[in-house]
């Protein structure tokens, strides 16, 4: 499922066949599964199957002359279903996307702004870097900030930008602070020193920006002594696990959900307040399809007393992307201008069809996207979007 990092490091469209990952492209049988499963396949002039055939015929330039690849939301669906096991998302499509962005006369404004902000402020929203740790003051439970208290720590919690600044994201932060404290985990955050992990930059194939952020974060992380990184953002998880590694970063990195699994028994004993909700869980692309964590989020939800889990039609490996990945978070206006339906709107219809009260998620992008989609669907009072950690915290009596 996951490409060999050593192999894809520094690979270009010219050298792609020199790697065994790249050679897989030669085995494409043109079955069209990638196109059929691509959430934006209908809107691409050159969807993945055609890109492969164009590439094989030396016509890759023609593909990057169009905006086809800008529509890729890095959802890994084509890769997950490819019968030839071609690492489309990780290897081929990113290279085409890089070329596409280079050739575009102007980037869509919203994306342009997000990238600029990330560069200047270390977060895509353009918030002040000095306010990054402000949320800590609102937490009922203590959160140690390394820059103020730099001693060794077991878990370095990489908060990331959405959770740090966005109000609903801060809810998840407080939930995590509570869970960590209750589980007696030795943890700390970087605080204002932290900057976006750079995954959004990477997925939009703004390599220079991504490298700047990676260099910065690696140097900051190098100042402190810790054993592992935990983050609630699957995109940061991917950035650390697949990109930072290429730049020599070695520490283990976990997403909060699988990280909590070894504490399952202890955690479950603390979940005493019943939450009598019907819940449907949306598999995040990065957490699920890319990293294979399908059972863990469901196990944690099922640990909460009172919760009844119902599934949407598309779940686990067949889940539909919320549309936020690959820079999609800042392309909604652009997509709309192309008459494309928002993926979060499509997804929310399936969620509503389950009749669930709560749409549980495991990625900070999903909360704002789905909350907005619920509003558009006129459903904002009937269904609530919540991160799994929020539900865990809610069930945990103080």
């Amino acid at each position: 499922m996951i490409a060999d990092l050593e192999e894809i490091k520094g690979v270009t469209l010219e050298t792609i066949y020199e790697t065994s990952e790249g050679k897989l492209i030669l085995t494409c049988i043109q079955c069209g599964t990638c196109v059929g499963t691509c959430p934006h396949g209908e809107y691409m002039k050159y969807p993945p199957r055609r890109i492969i055939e164009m590439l094989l015929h030396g016509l890759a330039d023609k593909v990057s002359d169009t905006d086809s690849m800008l529509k890729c939301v890095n959802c890994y669906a084509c890769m997950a279903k490819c019968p030839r096991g071609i690492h489309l998302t990780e290897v081929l499509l990113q290279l085409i996307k890089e070329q596409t962005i280079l050739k575009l006369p102007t980037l869509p404004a919203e994306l342009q702004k997000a990238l600029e902000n990330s560069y200047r402020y270390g977060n895509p929203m353009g918030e002040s870097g000095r306010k990054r740790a402000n949320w800590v003051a609102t937490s009922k439970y203590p959160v140690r900030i390394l820059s103020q208290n730099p001693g060794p720590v077991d878990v370095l919690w990489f908060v990331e930008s959405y959770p740090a600044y966005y109000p609903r994201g801060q809810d998840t932060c407080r939930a995590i602070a509570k869970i960590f404290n209750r589980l007696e985990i030795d943890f700390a955050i970087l605080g204002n020193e932290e900057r976006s992990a750079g995954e959004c930059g990477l997925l939009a194939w703004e390599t220079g920006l991504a490298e700047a952020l990676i260099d910065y974060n690696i140097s900051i992380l190098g100042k402190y002594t810790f054993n592992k990184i935990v983050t609630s953002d699957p995109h940061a998880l991917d950035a650390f696990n697949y990109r930072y590694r290429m730049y020599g970063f070695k520490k283990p990195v976990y997403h909060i959900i699988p990280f909590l699994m070894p504490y399952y028994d202890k955690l479950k004993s603390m979940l005493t307040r019943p939450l009598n909700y019907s819940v449907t869980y949306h598999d995040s692309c990065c957490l699920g399809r890319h990293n294979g964590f399908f059972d863990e989020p469901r196990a944690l939800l099922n640990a909460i007393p009172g919760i009844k889990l119902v599934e949407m039609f598309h779940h686990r490996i067949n889940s539909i992307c919320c549309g936020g990945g690959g820079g999609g978070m800042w392309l909604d206006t652009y997509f709309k201008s192309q008459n494309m339906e928002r993926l979060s709107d499509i997804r929310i219809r399936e969620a509503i069809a389950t009749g669930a009260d709560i749409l549980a998620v495991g990625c900070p992008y999903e909360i704002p996207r789905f909350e907005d989609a619920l509003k558009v669907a006129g459903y904002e009072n009937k269904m609530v979007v919540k991160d799994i950690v929020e539900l865990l915290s809610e069930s945990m009596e103080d």
Partner: protein
Amino acid sequence: MTNQGNNKDIRIGFYICHCGTNIASTVDVQKVVEFASKLPKVVVSRDYKYMCSDPGQELIQKDIKELGLNRIVVAACSPFLHEKTFRNASSQAGLNQFYFQMVNTREQNSWVHLDPYASTEKAIDLVRAAIYRVVYHKPLEQKRVPIHPDVLVVGGGIAGIHAALTLANAGKKVYLVEREPSIGGHMAMFDKTFPTLDCAACILTPKMTAVKNHPNITLWTYSEVIGVDGYVGNFKVKVRRKPRYINEDLCIGCLDCIEACVYKEGRFYDEFNLGLSKRKPVYIPFPQAVPLLVVIDPETCIQFKSGKCKQTCVEVCEPNAIDFTQKERIEEIEVGTIIIATGFQTFDPKKIPYYGYGTYPNVYTALEVERLINASGPTQGQIVLRDGTRPKSIAIIHCVGSRDKNTNQWCSRVCCLYSIKLAHLLKERTEAEIYNFYIDIRTPGKMMDEFFIRMKEEGIKFIRGRVADIYPDTSNGCCGKLVVKAEDTLVGEIIKVPVDMVVLSIGLEPRADAQEIRRMFNITCSTEGFYIERHPKLAPVNTFTDGIFLAGCCQGPKDIPDTVAQAGAAAAEALTLIDTGYIEIEPNTAFVLEDDCSGCKSCIPLCPYTAISFLEDKKKAFINEVLCKGCGTCVAACPSGSIVQNLFEDEEIFSEIVGVLNYTYHEEEV
């Protein structure tokens, strides 16, 4: 060192084969010939275009006679292919055939290397090794093992049935062992067969009855082979016969007991109909079952579960055939040859969750549809969905689980054609719109492509694109349809087709227990789990174990005509052995040098065949040549070097080591 015989008069002939250009294009044949001619004791060194041809063999024979050669080395292909050929050629010229040694210059050299220099160097090293080795060869006699004339056929599908009948008609006694209560296998489940559309039952049932009635066939259904011992010609086989709880000799097949069962309706999963219908605890798998004997399923029968059944079945059975006390029996038989025809299983489509099998009731497997179409099936041939309605649109999805790295990588060969056949039958019975979603249509074989074209003419739709997603239609006026989403790759558009029924054309795969069966019979499996034939072209039904043959889909997916042809071939191979009466086996057995043995007993526990025993009177170890299979493990482990393996003597291998390493050459170099 032990005395290796009189080496003075050794006269070696060396020959290298060009194999057309197969060897000669990579290996510098001339250089090897020249090199070999200079080695000690080599009298003649030649090359020839095709050594295995008659003139090639005659060349050797002429040299043996005229030049008095007494050792022959041929560098050609793998010994698996032509060692016998050259041994025979040598022996026809009056030389003991074991004075021959072969060098593998093709499969393990010219075909696997690109650089002619390195290939030639390798060939020279291996030729040197063979020439050094052959000096130590001894004249040996081939052992003859008598062949027990009885045959065991494992598996009662069409392959096993055909093989058994062929052998029985030739007058041989056959044991046919089938795991299920009836023979017939998968073919009995089918409705019609492609491309002729004749009814499977019509052509299969007469053969099934013939098996039952044949005086030379012992048919054991509901039975499993649980142990195999021995070797070609003399296998000892253990068969477990599971209790049916019916006295087979008394049951007359009236089926009154089924009628009389306390369960008025079927309540339990009907294996033969894949759960599309329900059966009672007392049942027959299908109306044409052979033997027509009922079975009682102890898992569901009230008598077995609580012991408190009214036993209405017993009351009604006039011949008093029902016997709840029946126990399993173990039969032990001796046979000379074995035909494995254990068949296949179908791919479990739940492994591809996005096709919704098991989630959406209207997603069926092709095998389930075979049962639906079949007049003796759960709906008496009516094509109706689980809610009783008749589908108006049907999608058939090809290649389910096949050609896919995530599931099975191979093409199952039969799915295209059976999908096309099902499309025809479904259209004929329902007049529904039929969409075939395919990656490639593969219709090789006699009348097969013609069949495909005919079906196109019938108006069946073919869409080139692998289905990416199946989900319920939730559009306005939601109708319970399923949306099949794929890219129509020829048009270049994504299509979403709402259909009433989805048929998954699941591929064929090895049975789940293929590995256990393989171990039991000591045959080999490919990584996929299909049994490997000895040679894909020249020995397609043989295995690497002498006396065991393959027939049908256990060797790889194939259709009915190919299965029957292979079953016939397997039967013919067995017949050849039986009618020859014996088999010559390699004399590579080990023997103890009695004078030298100290009787330390180290070797005795190492032999898996208990061929080594301790002679209490002499206080020495003794190897029973008949039981020895010639692995050489005891030889390697004998601490005083007192066991010798024919064909693989220590000195023979030591001289090969010296040869491949060009040992003296290195010394000169220093």
